């Protein structure tokens, strides 16, 4: 296994196609490396599942497609894997179109949602399957399969049937089964959906380590925001068959570009109002809860515009009492509930008829619990206010 930590990041030189594991023959020339979706569209009769999506994924990159149920993320994954044919557009891998190539002939493999292990075959039989289909002789394929089973730590269970394994072990078999075929691109469809939470947390780290070791691109589909943030090099947020935002976890989390992303990623206070004042580098909005000011560089806003802004919950400060010290970015509110989350505390508040949320460090626990039902002042900085597209 080639260990290529250095290419795990997004620096994608054309040569990096050569970094895929040895054994694939290297017959494919590397021009336009990585995976490219060009204006891909997919209709299911009248339903448009994916609408004109373009996306580039570099070799060695870990990309997570994130979105709610029915947003089109699974369909995109299935089109990359060849299990679904695009209605329009093109899918290219290292510059070569994959459209019309059956899944068996693609250098991609998929880890399916419920693992889709062959129930009638042992762990070894499952892992060997792909090699057997490639016509590799018995000795060779047994050796390679055993190496892979060893790698995922299941040597002692090699003769067990999938039904005799735990969820986590099944997941490892599913991984070993696809990795043994040395794919150029690994597709994962909700890979942790069937695992309990503790196991999920462990598998996230393991999977990420594995990906770095292999140096191949992983495309991972999930509806779980936390999972996406913790694993991805880049996150692609989807909704309604469209890409809503593409960015690093930090970008998606700190600078959501539109209302959907802000709402979907959670822990955002979304406020709406009318621009009241635009002065150099600062815009004041008359929001329904009070005055909000934000730092805007080259502002295209003018007075009277309707805008929506977001303030992240962990940027909100909270002090007891309701003395108002500044004109903007400060609200008097009533604490309605506190949630202790271990490392942080969520404080739910109400300003007028609007709910607000703050995330505060856990050392203020005693103080915050005492605030329940009382009035408090929430405030934040100009720089924490994010303008959203509708």
């Amino acid at each position: 296994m080639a260990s290529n930590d250095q290419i795990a990041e997004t620096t994608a030189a054309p040569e990096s196609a050569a970094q895929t594991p040895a054994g694939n023959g290297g017959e494919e020339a590397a021009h336009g490396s990585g995976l490219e979706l060009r204006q891909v569209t997919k209709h299911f009769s009248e339903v448009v599942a994916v609408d004109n999506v373009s996306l580039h994924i570099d070799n060695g990159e870990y990309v997570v497609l994130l979105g709610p149920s029915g947003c089109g993320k699974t369909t995109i994954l299935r089109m990359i894997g060849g299990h679904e044919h695009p209605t329009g557009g093109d899918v290219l891998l290292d510059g070569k179109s994959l459209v019309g190539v059956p899944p068996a002939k693609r250098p991609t493999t998929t880890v399916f949602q419920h693992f889709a292990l062959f129930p009638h075959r042992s762990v070894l039989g499952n892992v060997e399957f792909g090699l057997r289909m490639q016509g590799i002789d018995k000795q060779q394929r047994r050796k390679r399969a055993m190496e892979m089973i060893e790698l995922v730590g299941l040597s002692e269970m090699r003769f067990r049937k999938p039904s005799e394994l735990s969820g986590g072990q099944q997941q490892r078999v599913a991984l070993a089964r696809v990795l043994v075929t040395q794919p150029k691109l690994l597709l994962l469809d909700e890979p942790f959906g069937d695992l309990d939470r503790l196991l999920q947390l462990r598998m996230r780290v393991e999977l990420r380590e594995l990906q770095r070791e292999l140096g191949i691109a992983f495309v991972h589909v999930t509806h779980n925001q936390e999972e996406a943030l913790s694993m991805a090099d880049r996150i692609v947020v989807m909704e309604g068959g469209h890409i809503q935002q593409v960015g690093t976890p930090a970008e998606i989390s700190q600078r959501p570009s539109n209302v959907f992303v802000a709402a979907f990623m959670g822990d955002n206070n979304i406020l709406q109002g009318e621009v009241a004042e635009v002065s150099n580098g600062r815009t004041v909005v008359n929001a329904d809860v009070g005055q909000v000011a934000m730092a805007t560089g080259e502002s295209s806003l003018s007075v009277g515009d309707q805008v929506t802004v977001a303030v992240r919950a962990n940027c909100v400060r909270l002090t007891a009492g309701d003395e108002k010290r500044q004109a903007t970015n400060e609200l008097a509110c009533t604490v309605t509930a506190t949630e202790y989350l271990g490392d942080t505390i969520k404080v739910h508040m109400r300003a007028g008829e609007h709910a607000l949320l703050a995330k505060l460090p856990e050392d203020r626990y005693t103080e915050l619990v005492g605030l329940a039902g009382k009035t408090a002042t929430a405030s934040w900085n100009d720089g924490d206010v994010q303008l959203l597209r509708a």
Partner: protein
Amino acid sequence: MPEPELTPTKSATEGRSGVDSVVPGDIALSDAAGAEIYGEEKGAGHLQAPPGASKLVTLLWMLPGALWLLIFLVAPVIVVLVVSFFTGTITGFKEVFTTSNYSAIFSGSSTYLSTLGTVARNSAIVTAVCLVIGYPVAYFLAVKVKKTQYAFGLFLIALAPFFTSTLIRAEAWIPTMSINGAVNSILKDIGIIHHPLGILLFSNFAVIVALVQLLVLFMVTPIFFQLAALDRSAIEAARDLGASGFRVFMNVTLPLTRGGIMIGCVFVFVLSMGDFATYKLVGGGSVGSIGLNIQNLVSLLNYPQAAAQAAILVVAMAIGVVLLLRFAKLQEQV
């Protein structure tokens, strides 16, 4: 404790139901919803389609079965209709168009229509009795037996006789119901009757009883499956709201199982209309049926007449089914 209102602004959540901006980030959508993603995007089919489904492969899979059904099912049924318009001869038929086979049926001297009337009435009675007997059985198994494996075990015990021979099940009524049969000797032993009852065998009554026994599982099965698939929480919710057991049954359970009832009724009605063995063995010679008529006509080589009678039987069955469905529709509107 009341859940606090989480929506910061009204507009932010408009049209975004289910995704709330201040919902904790990791549980905005349930896993169950995630599991359904593929199904939703795929659109509904009968079964999940297998990969690589080309038209040619489908056709190849289809061909043997379709040909078999065409030759041994569709063609014979069509031929019956065609031959019913042929002219009968001493040795069979010649291919000359006539409607005389039908006019013979509708002429005054024919007993066909009265036989058909009896069979239709019997079938309606059998259907009703099967429903009355079968519904509580299905209800008991699906609702009252709490453990699913017991329910299915008992259901299979009830289902097993269906696969045994209709002929032997009809035969078994003879020692059970005859003058010196089991029922008469038991009734005599416990002193309810002094002389054996003759009506128990070779009578219309006997035919109805035997048909009910033969077909009742066609009623129980679809109702059972519908009840088993029923969301029990709907029933419990109705209970919690204070509805009595009877009212829950009338207002919740019964309407939700109408589909199963309809399928069961159609099956029982159609199968009892076309019955032959029960009328012959349990009815003796005393009750006529269309099946018996057809067999007699075939043995007389009067094929076109037999075909016409069979054709009218099919029409009568179709009318019966339509009436049943119509009745169900009316119930729906009330």
